[in-house]
């Protein structure tokens, strides 16, 4: 029994785009027998290598199969690539998630965003292997779709993309983390930590802990650094929340100071204090000399101690 599948929105020989596969051509509608049931499929053939993909007509939309982009969409992509947006996500987890979503969605603009974002990032530092592969596959999909929609050769399509990204006669700019900081605006936390892609390993460390330099600055003078208003506000809040100490009179202050002087200020150190050995030496010089073994010269020999009297036979030891 053939399932009552909805009619596919594409006709035979239409060019469609399957996400992560690229431009395909609808080659026909097939009916196959699977587990005793007859199921209809839309057959797609990939243009680059002729690979066949079969999709049930009801699942075309959920799989992300769409019609080939038009010239207006291509022009919009070129405008985006030409634009001076140099904002790249430096948080590698977020970037990986976003790029994977864009690739799975399969939109032309999404591919352009992946290419542009990774290209901008590569101007700061070389891409890791996984992202380099992602960049390459996104570029391949983008170029093949643009070539199909503009009816030009892939060579021209790729050059069109690259002319938009880096015009002829200009070197690609080298970027610094500060540039990203400026373009990122308030995206401060996602910035410097991620340059080595290590933010995931630093999750356990509390983020609100001030760096040691700031502690020193705050200790030296109580000025609030102007670039950290949020932290200053937090510190003020903490100061309010802390219990207030009672105000001491002059005598109390003096006593407290005297106690502080009398008591050892530093924690008790383990081990012998330096110079203590010399004091002890002067106090007991005999102990300082190494003890000589054996009989002192000229001393008489000790008489042999008499052997212990053996108990008489028959006498029982212990209490009577």
């Amino acid at each position, binding site marked *: 029994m053939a399932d009552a599948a909805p009619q596919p929105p594409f006709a035979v020989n239409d060019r469609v785009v399957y996400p992560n596969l690229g431009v395909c051509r609808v080659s026909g509608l097939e009916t196959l027998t699977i587990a005793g049931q007859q199921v209809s499929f839309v057959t797609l053939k990939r243009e*680059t290598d002729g690979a066949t993909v079969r999709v049930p007509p009801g699942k075309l939309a959920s799989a992300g199969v769409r019609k080939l982009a038009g010239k207006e969409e*291509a*022009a919009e992509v*070129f405008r985006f*690539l*030409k634009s001076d947006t140099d904002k790249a996500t430096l948080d590698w987890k977020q970037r990986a998630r976003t790029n994977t979503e864009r690739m799975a969605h399969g939109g032309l603009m999404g591919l352009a965003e992946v290419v542009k974002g990774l*290209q901008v990032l*590569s101007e700061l530092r*070389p*891409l890791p*292997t996984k992202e*380099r*592969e992602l*960049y*390459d596959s996104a*570029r*391949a999909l983008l*170029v093949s779709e643009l070539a199909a929609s*503009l009816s030009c*050769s*892939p*060579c*021209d399509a*790729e*050059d*069109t*993309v*690259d*002319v*938009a990204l*880096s*015009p*002829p*006669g*200009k*070197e*690609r700019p080298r970027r610094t983390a500060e540039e990203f900081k400026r373009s990122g605006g308030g995206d401060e936390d996602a910035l410097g930590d991620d340059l080595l892609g290590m933010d995931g390993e630093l999750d356990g460390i509390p983020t609100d802990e001030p760096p040691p330099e700031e502690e020193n600055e705050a200790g030296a003078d109580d000025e609030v650094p102007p670039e950290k208003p949020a932290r200053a506000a937090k510190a003020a809040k903490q100061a309010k929340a802390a219990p207030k100490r009672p105000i001491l009179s002059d005598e109390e202050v003096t006593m407290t100071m005297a106690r502080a002087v009398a008591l050892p200020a530093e924690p008790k150190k383990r081990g012998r204090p330096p110079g203590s050995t010399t004091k002890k030496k002067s106090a007991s010089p005999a102990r300082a000399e190494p003890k000589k073994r054996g009989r002192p010269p000229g001393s008489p020999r000790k008489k042999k101690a008499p052997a212990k009297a053996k108990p008489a036979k028959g006498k029982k030891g212990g209490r009577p």
Partner: protein
Amino acid sequence: MIRVATLDELDPQVLKGLCKHLYTAFGVGTELSEPVSYPRGMAEPFDAERLLEAVPAVRAFQDDKVLYLTRARLKERTLATGNVPTHGHCRYGKDRALISLAGVKDLEAGLPVISRHALHVVGHLWDLYHCLDPRCAMFPPWTPSFDKGEPTFCTFCREKSERKIALAKS
């Protein structure tokens, strides 16, 4: 196998050096084919795409790549995003590519530049796309620093081309 065919007469030493560079970069055999003539009805500067379509084929096996060399100028292309100079042209993932030596005055001294352009177009024949590394031969060829680089690939492009070559039939 890469086959090099010339549309103009060129110095054999230059061709030998070019073949050596191609062999070093791709690790496949490279040899000179018989020279071919320009197609009729076309004049300089040539439209690279049309010239590549019309140029006579050379004897080659399946999956062989043919590189044509010309001393004629190629027409600048007008693309949707701007004009771009044409140093060569190729059919992506297919069998033939073309480069122009018109910009190089001294061929012997400019052998690294010629080889870099040759690597670029032949790399496209093995499905390589433009690279992000300025030292790689797959970097966009219209950047000013392209001609100063060595005729080599970056690690990523080298490995990708090796994978593609391993899948080839000849």
